[in-house]
């Protein structure tokens, strides 16, 4: 399952499925499938973008990877080893190697902890930098590394910081224990446009400097383009397309990828006609390709059975019977 990457996979999910039960009225419950038979790998040292619309299961995938959520079925492998059957001790090590930056900078820091406490917490938990003094130095270094002035912010509480500053604190916290994998769940979507590039540049720089592997979740293809080597496109819990960033943006194979691209607002002129497939949100999911109800190219075969992710052309993978350029 190379999917256009190269080298060794750092983290890999195989046939992952996650469902939630949602209430439909008072007593009725129904299972909403958030991730459906998904297989994907992030290669050592790359930044992999996971792109998809709201509700496509991106956050759910991230939560499975950091073990906040147990999948119903499937495997999660880290450096080839099973993550789901870890012992407590192995899990501690794993928690150190895999860190996450959350979407909402206003909610992901404890309101009762100062910047100092927040950055120090992972060091304490994992017994990094044993004594008080070296821990203090480390906190200062981390805070400075993410572009904040330690003297000015270390005793501040989250509410005294701007969204951008908070997100920098979250990044410092995540990097405190030198993880191998950093998962960023829409780290800039709630930030001001003027601050976004600053955070993205910071993450790019740190990634280069620390040799991190990054899984970068976003719904903004522009951001993904700025940031990612490879992009995986998700739709309703399924992988639609995986490819190198330039190739995917220049020549999308999957109609859904094309829809995403066409939806990007184009400054200076009205873009192509907006997708009016508003009412077509197909629930319960059809037997065939999940995107078929909204797909302008769908044929009978698409509605009958779901296509698997296959190599359409050299290192181009798409889950579509009739990819756009073949």
């Amino acid at each position, binding site marked *: 399952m190379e999917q256009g990457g190269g080298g060794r996979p750092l983290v890999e999910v195989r046939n992952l499925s996650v469902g939630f039960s949602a209430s439909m009225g008072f007593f009725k419950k129904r299972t909403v499938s958030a991730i459906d038979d998904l297989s994907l790998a992030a290669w050592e040292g790359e930044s992999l973008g996971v792109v998809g619309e709201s509700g496509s299961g991106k956050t759910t995938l991230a939560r499975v990877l950091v073990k906040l959520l147990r999948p119903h079925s499937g495997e999660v492998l880290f450096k080839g080893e099973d993550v789901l059957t870890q012992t407590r001790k192995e899990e501690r090590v794993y928690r150190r190697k895999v860190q996450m930056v959350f979407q909402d900078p206003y909610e992901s820091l*404890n309101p009762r*902890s100062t910047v100092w406490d927040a950055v120090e917490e992972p060091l304490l938990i994992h017994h990094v930098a044993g004594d008080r003094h070296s821990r203090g130095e480390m906190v200062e270094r981390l805070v400075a590394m993410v572009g904040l002035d330690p003297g000015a912010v270390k005793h501040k509480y989250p509410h005294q910081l701007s969204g951008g500053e908070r997100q920098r604190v979250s990044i410092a916290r995540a990097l405190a224990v030198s993880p191998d994998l950093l998962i960023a769940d829409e780290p800039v979507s709630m930030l001001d446009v003027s601050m976004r590039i600053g955070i993205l540049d910071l993450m790019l720089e740190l990634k280069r400097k620390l040799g991190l592997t990054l899984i970068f979740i976003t719904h903004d293809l522009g951001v993904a383009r700025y940031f990612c080597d490879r992009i995986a496109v998700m739709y309703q819990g399924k992988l639609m397309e995986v490819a190198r960033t330039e190739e995917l943006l220049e020549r999308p194979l999957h109609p859904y990828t094309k829809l995403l691209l066409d939806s990007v607002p184009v400054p200076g002129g009205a873009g192509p006609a907006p997708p009016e497939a508003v009412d077509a949100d197909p629930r319960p999911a059809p037997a065939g390709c999940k995107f078929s109800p909204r797909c302008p190219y769908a044929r009978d075969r698409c509605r009958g059975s779901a296509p698997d992710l296959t190599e359409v052309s050299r290192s181009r993978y798409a889950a579509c019977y009739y990819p756009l350029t073949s």
Partner: protein
Amino acid sequence: MTENKRVTSGVLIIGIFVFMAVFAPWLTPYKPQVVSGSPYSPPSFQHWMGTDDLGYDVMSQVIYGARISLTVGFTVALAATSIGSLIGLLSGFYRGVVDEALMRFTDVILVLPSLPLAIILAAYLGPSVITIIEVLTLTSWPLVARVIRSQTLSLRERPFVDAARVAGASDARIMFKVIIPNLLSLIAANAVLAITGAVVGEAGLDFIGMGNPSVVSWGTMLYWSQNLGAVLRGAWWWILAPGLCIAFVGLGAVLISIGVENIFNPRLRGR
């Protein structure tokens, strides 16, 4: 600003009573249980708050009474809030079976009527201050547990709890280092209010004779004044003095509890 003033006045009120309790021997003109005047004498220069049926000085009794009443109040508040908070925290954090079990247990205690319970326990253990503390603690933690549980339930869903977990924090660390700091103002407010509950409760149990009637407390004062028909004899001071003390402790506690959020919430602290 005004809230800070409220807290200050609340602390001041409670502080005065604590001062009274601690320094009772130096503040009282007479021994509380020594005849120092004629029975039922109204307030005068010798007896600022009059005397009771035996000619004991009411003011001295009120000052000494603060010792028992406040001890019971603080002890019960501390014990009930600790137990209630811990059970509420565990229940809300673990949910599921733990929650189910703990909350069923809490409900059972909650519906136990405290009076009959007190009577039974007192019969078993003998009427004493300790019995009163036990009874009041037993009946007041469930309410705290309920409040803390529901707040914990909502706190545990907040993203910063997930963030702590991803950072590798254990359950204990999340509960005590992440959730508890966010509950502190609620816990403190509950504790402060529990003081009032306990002081009133102590008086109530004394009033029906569950305490040791020979001990001086605001409750036993009310018990005797009621039993010996202070109202009929027009000895209003004998009822009013302990009654007012209880009311003022309540007022002080409420004033503090209102402003407690300001002390623990860093967002409000700076203002």
